[in-house]
């Protein structure tokens, strides 16, 4: 007898999830590191619907079990997201690991997360008889902690195109090029119209219990001219230094993480000030 469930449809998966205690298994690249064999897996990798990417005029819908190597090939996927995915692990891991697994795992060092926070991504959460959308920043509540209910599955990641089609800035700092978990990472997007900053968002990875995004600081910059932005740079960096609280761990130190994150923020703000519309 095989202890595992291998459904081919989302409906069957949701039914199994409601009736049994299971662990959701998408690509297994987080689960298999800390192998937990007592609870059966509910395999999501055989459900075609969870591997689809679709779009309409204003929105991109990414199936939660899409693997990274497929997303890298898909022209609908925003470049900033591709840039972060290309830094993840190695080809063999990218052939298994999924974007939904990165969210479900909820590590502050998850590399798609700062991008998804900056893009204001929402998650479509399904149970057998309900469906809701949650902003990613409300879904992840701590390291490895989400608000996912026991009978729920993330079905889709929903990205507004208004955010996906504008200029971006992304940097990941790790110990080496391949197979390196982030020491820290930074994702930013912006839009200039008629000499003013009309959209601005940024998010910091691996420098707090969750990805950090501070919309109140972002507000300070909205509507400002390039000259005004330039004059605000120091102030903005100071504001962010109050909300970034990294820790020391085996990958890096709190001091390094904070310093480099703020340097990247400064660089991003310079890029904006020097940008042509």
């Amino acid at each position: 007898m095989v202890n595992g469930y291998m459904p081919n449809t989302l409906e069957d998966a949701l039914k199994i999830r409601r009736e049994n205690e299971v662990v959701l298994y998408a690509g297994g690249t987080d689960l298999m590191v800390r192998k937990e064999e007592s609870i059966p897996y509910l395999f999501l990798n055989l459900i075609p619907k969870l591997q689809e990417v679709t779009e309409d005029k204003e929105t991109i819908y990414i199936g939660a079990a899409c693997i990274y190597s497929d997303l890298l090939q898909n022209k609908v996927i925003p470049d900033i997201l591709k840039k972060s995915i290309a830094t993840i692990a190695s080809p063999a891991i990218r052939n298994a690991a999924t974007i939904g697994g990165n969210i479900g795992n909820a590590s502050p060092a998850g590399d798609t997360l700062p991008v998804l926070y900056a893009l204001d991504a929402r998650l479509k959460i399904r149970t057998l008889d309900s469906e809701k959308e949650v902003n990613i920043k409300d879904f992840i509540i701590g390291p490895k902690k989400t608000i996912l209910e026991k009978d729920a599955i993330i079905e889709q990641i929903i990205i507004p195109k208004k955010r996906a089609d504008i200029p971006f800035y992304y940097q990941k700092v790790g110990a080496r090029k391949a197979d390196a978990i982030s020491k820290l990472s930074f994702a930013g997007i912006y839009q200039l119209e008629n000499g003013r900053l009309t959209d601005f968002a940024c998010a910091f990875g691996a420098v707090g219990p969750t990805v950090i995004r501070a919309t109140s600081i972002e507000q300070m910059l909205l509507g400002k001219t390039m000259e005004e932005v330039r004059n605000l740079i120091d102030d903005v960096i100071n504001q962010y230094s109050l909300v970034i609280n990294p820790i020391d761990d085996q990958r890096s130190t709190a001091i390094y993480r904070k310093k480099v994150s703020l340097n990247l923020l400064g660089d991003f703000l310079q890029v904006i000030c020097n940008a042509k519309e």
Partner: protein
Amino acid sequence: MSDCIHFILNGESVDADVPGTARLLDILREYFKLTGVKCGCGEGECGACAVLINGKLRNSCMVAMGSLEGCSVMTIEGYEKTEKFAVVEKAYGKAGAVQCGFCTPGMIMATEALLSKNPHPTDSEIREGLSGNLCRCTGYNMIVEAVMTAAKEGAGLW
């Protein structure tokens, strides 16, 4: 739940009565006695356990058996029987790309995965393609050269 996991292993249809949570790596080595697949790290970081699943490079230490239902798995033991392997083997030998040999089965599966997608890779594409495979002996340059040679000598095969 089902009774068995059905999949294709090196071209043959198999039914494995094993736990869905078991690692493919352990099942290949201990149940199917395919010991060309090595365990280096057990954490997805070294590529010594690499196999092809539906033609794609995967680390078998990171694969739970239940995810394989209906899939096709190829290990070095299956690949060994192909014409492409003969070309890759010769190229690795010529370049001196094998020393202790522990990384070699995984390197060769990564080589196949790369060439099947990109028959004429550049130096940096080869390094990217093999970036998940660690070698403690060769310093990598000989392996990169071996892949270059295989691409040249095997022109038309991939």
